[in-house]
């Protein structure tokens, strides 16, 4: 029984590592910054959550001593909260810094909103 739970945890760590590998390959292959942060954040958040659940199941026999599971849950909640926020702030800064979009971009909703005066561009003083 314990061995089965350990095996499930190890397989979840392997799935998380596969997802992070896909994220890294996407970081290398995508054409511009905005696509890169999209693959880099989504896939790595999923991979991080799967790998942390896997670590929690892998240490099944030592849940009693030293609150191992509580720390895993804290780390999962923390990554789930901070990772989208940091990538969003970074991409907003990149857009207003005028990092060029790739040539095959079709729609740009933020530019339409700035043109219609819904959102103001922050002043660069």
């Amino acid at each position: 029984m314990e061995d089965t739970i350990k095996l499930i945890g190890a397989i979840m760590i392997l799935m998380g590592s596969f997802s992070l590998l896909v994220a890294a390959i996407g970081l290398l292959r995508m054409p511009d910054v905005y696509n890169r942060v999209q693959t880099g954040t989504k896939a790595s958040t999923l991979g991080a959550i799967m790998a942390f659940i896997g670590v929690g199941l892998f240490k099944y026999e030592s849940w009693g001593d030293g609150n191992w599971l509580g720390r895993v849950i804290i780390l999962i909640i923390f990554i789930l909260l901070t990772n989208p926020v940091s990538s969003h702030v970074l991409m907003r800064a990149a857009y207003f810094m005028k990092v060029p979009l790739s040539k095959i971009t079709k729609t740009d909703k933020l530019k339409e909103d700035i043109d219609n005066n819904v959102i103001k561009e922050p002043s660069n003083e």
Partner: protein
Amino acid sequence: MISPEMIVYIAVGMFSLAILIAMIRFIKGPSVVDRVVAFDSLTITSLILISVIAALSNRMIYFDVAIVYGLLSFVGVIVVAKYIQKGL
């Protein structure tokens, strides 16, 4: 019979490969933002690597290192974003 530890060692190899591939983007990246994105991805990968190594070697103190490292990297990315937007 494959033991769970062997699967975890294979996963550690795949984490290292992901770190190497993200490192190529970190060196090549045309703009500053590319490098920050690659650095963020590197941080998350190494966070998981630290916690997996903590599980393998039965040391819970490494896990606290991972928690503090995650906190500091979040603050670092926010500060860099505010700086390149000239808001700092």
